């Protein structure tokens, strides 16, 4: 585990996310801000990854299946040193390696292309089956959204994960309860997601998704042999910026100048930093 102040790290990552979205005037703030602690836990405390060797053979695979939250992923990857932080300000612009949704062929540190919901967790499942077949000991982590769990493919993948006894796979849910058109409950109620994953054969845990150490403890907790793991992280969309928090309207909207300055002030991050 790296000896870092992860709370401070989360604050700075949030600042970078907002600056990226403000600069490009495009992207998804709500779901990016909700998964910051999940990504910090994975990249700084849990996963075996090496920014100097992004294609290291036995690296753990981290798949951001809710690909629209990639500003958070990019900010973390830059902070880890996969590419210069200045690249972040080119988000979504022509010739940038930072695409609107993660692209493994362009961005160092991105293992799997995602963005079309449901596919990332399914690919992660395939990687985990292949890893077992090849007797490789790396682990696979997939971060899904709650809106994403409305995709049938998510459950096809869950069924396969149990069938193939993927104790090397962890599915992490960023459960911020909101999606584009409103709350999950209003749009398409996902019900008791813990019970659903339990019924599919996963070992399930529920944590506060904004407490990094708690997430890390859950991710590191050993599971029964042959069981895939499901960690439900209760989060808030737009976390860290009061006027964005818990507002579905901030799913895919870039902040205006005033909103950006207000948000940065609230985070306590210098816009020139």
């Amino acid at each position, binding site marked *: 585990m790296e000896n870092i102040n992860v709370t401070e790290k989360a604050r700075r990552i949030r600042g970078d996310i907002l600056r990226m979205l403000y600069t490009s005037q495009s992207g998804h703030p709500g779901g990016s801000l909700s998964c910051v602690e999940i990504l910090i836990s994975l990249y700084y405390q849990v996963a075996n990854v090496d920014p100097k060797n992004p294609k290291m053979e036995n690296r753990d695979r981290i798949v951001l299946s809710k690909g629209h939250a990639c500003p958070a992923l990019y900010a973390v990857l830059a902070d880890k040193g996969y590419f210069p932080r200045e690249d972040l300000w080119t988000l979504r612009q022509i010739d940038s390696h930072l695409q609107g949704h993660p692209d493994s062929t362009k961005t160092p540190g991105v293992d799997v*292309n995602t963005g079309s919901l449901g596919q990332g967790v399914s690919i992660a499942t*395939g990687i985990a*089956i292949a890893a077992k077949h*090849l007797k490789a000991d790396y682990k696979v982590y997939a971060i899904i959204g709650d809106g994403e769990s409305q995709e049938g493919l998510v459950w*096809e993948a869950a069924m396969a994960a149990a069938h193939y006894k993927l104790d090397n796979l962890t599915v992490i849910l960023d459960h911020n309860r909101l999606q584009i058109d409103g709350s999950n409950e209003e749009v398409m109620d996902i019900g008791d997601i813990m019970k659903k994953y339990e019924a599919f054969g996963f070992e399930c845990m529920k944590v506060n998704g904004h407490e990094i150490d708690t997430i890390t403890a859950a991710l590191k907790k050993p599971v029964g042999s042959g069981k895939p793991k499901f960690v439900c992280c209760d989060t808030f969309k737009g976390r860290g910026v009061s006027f964005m928090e818990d507002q579905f309207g901030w799913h895919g909207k870039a902040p205006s100048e005033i909103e950006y300055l207000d948000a940065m002030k609230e985070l306590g991050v210098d816009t020139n930093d």
Partner: protein
Amino acid sequence: MIEKQSLRVSYGNALVELGRKDSRVVVLDADLAHATMTSIFAKEFPDRFFNFGIAETNMVCAAAGFAHAGLVPFFSTFALFGAGRAYEMIRNSIAYVDANVKFGLSHSGLSVGEDGGSHQSFEDIALMREIPGMTILVPCDPIETRKAVFAAAEISGPVYIRVARPIVDTITTQDTPFVPGKANPMRDGSDICIMTTGLMVPYALAAAEQLAAKNINAAVVNFHTIKPFDNQCVLEMANKCGAVVTVEEHSVIGGLGSAVAEVLAGNSSARFARIGIQDKFGRSGKPEHLFKEYGLTAENIVNQCMALKG
């Protein structure tokens, strides 16, 4: 020398042969192993065969995961449920990253027969043609099917092999060239060129025989590769013959007929007609009855050629 064999049996046998040579080759199926004949591979290599149940979209993404981990997955199910149902996964999770996944999709076209319109895929080539970087191979007989499997393994990136269900005659030989992207002339001629693919190749050859009796000298070219397409061959034959008929067991929209039309448009004044499924769904029936009903016969090819020359 095999005289008659279903392409799917040839496919299954070729996978075993390939599997013996390359331990990275694994096979994925969606509860149709005994129909796609990947069961032959499963029997020989149970540890390298993965059944995904009736969940084709997950199987596509899982195949992307397998390729990511360094394996060479061959993916099999019916053409409609792979290329059709899982189209967007093939586009985004496979082709968009140039994943090294091979699709051997069987039960394509009208020759599925009795299962009817819900299972007869006339649009799989069209769907796959739209995807950048996809190679499309359409073998015409058991020998070409084996060659297609081996060629697919040699190609880096996604490959679609269209496999048909019926037992068919062998019409090529081991020595017949099979170079992806290079069409095979099957019969020389100068009056009209019949450009065809897959199961329709023997029908085109039979039609050329009948045309010869009417003093029409028809060339037959086998386009076993629909993508990358042999544009040069199309133009050469169109210029030489002045008339072109395409024949395919697929919709005339988006398949071989469209590929040829795209080359001819603006580049050739050759007369042109397309034989294939004319923007219709299929239905139940014995394949030979359906072929007659939908105009996939030597007789119809002869008539269309005569009309074009007329």
